[in-house]
């Protein structure tokens, strides 16, 4: 079993997948915590930021088109034309977050039209060790199983 995780049966008595309890909770603990990174940026910069995030061993992310809520008067005052945004949802390993958030902070400050906001929300549990390994990019566990 990868990572020495203990599998748990669910309340119905069936075990459709192995439950991974993430750190901070009782029971079997996963060695690497995961967090959901939510990044809100200009629509035109979504791909740029997704490439950056992907370089931090992020295997799963998706972007949704969105709109900012700034009032028309404020946009006129600032000389802006649209409020098109993209919200990027990425599953990131907690041990990568220091580096990644530092990079994002730098890019938000220095890239033209690259201003954005990012927040992270910790995962508390997950079902399925193979999904967990995929999200953690635990390549060694996959190789070890073969």
């Amino acid at each position, binding site marked *: 079993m990868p990572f020495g995780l203990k599998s748990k049966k669910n309340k119905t008595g069936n075990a459709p997948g192995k439950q991974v309890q993430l750190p901070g909770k009782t029971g079997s603990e996963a060695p690497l915590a995961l967090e959901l990174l939510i990044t809100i940026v200009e629509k035109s910069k979504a791909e740029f930021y997704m490439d950056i995030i992907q370089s931090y061993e992020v295997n799963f992310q998706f972007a949704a088109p969105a709109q900012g*809520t700034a009032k028309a008067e404020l946009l006129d005052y600032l000389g802006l034309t649209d409020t098109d945004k993209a*919200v990027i949802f990425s599953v990131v390993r907690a041990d990568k977050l220091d580096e990644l958030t530092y990079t994002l902070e730098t890019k938000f400050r220095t890239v033209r039209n690259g201003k954005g906001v990012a927040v992270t929300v910790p995962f508390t549990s997950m079902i399925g060790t193979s999904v967990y390994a995929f999200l953690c990019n635990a390549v060694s566990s996959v190789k070890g199983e073969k």
Partner: protein
Amino acid sequence: MNENSGYEMIFCIINSGFSETVMDAAREAGARGGTVIRARGTASKEAEETFGITIHPDKEVLMILVPKDIKDAVLEAVYKSAGMSTAGQGIAFSMAVNRTVGLQ
């Protein structure tokens, strides 16, 4: 980057077209801005019949990042302006965020 930042993310799931109403109420309670994602609801037909309500499938998800100390006031404002008993049929909840980037 700010760890354990003292911010919370409020998610409001509302009928399409009500994001302005919610945002106006949230602003009055101290929120600065938000981001709207278009979405579709998936309530079951049976539940609609049982509770005697019609679920408008076109939804908007409004995400508002606020300091923890005004979270309750913003949630209350959102509930009053577009709660389940209003035409907005909104559901709102908040999640604590670990880190924030880009707020300064």
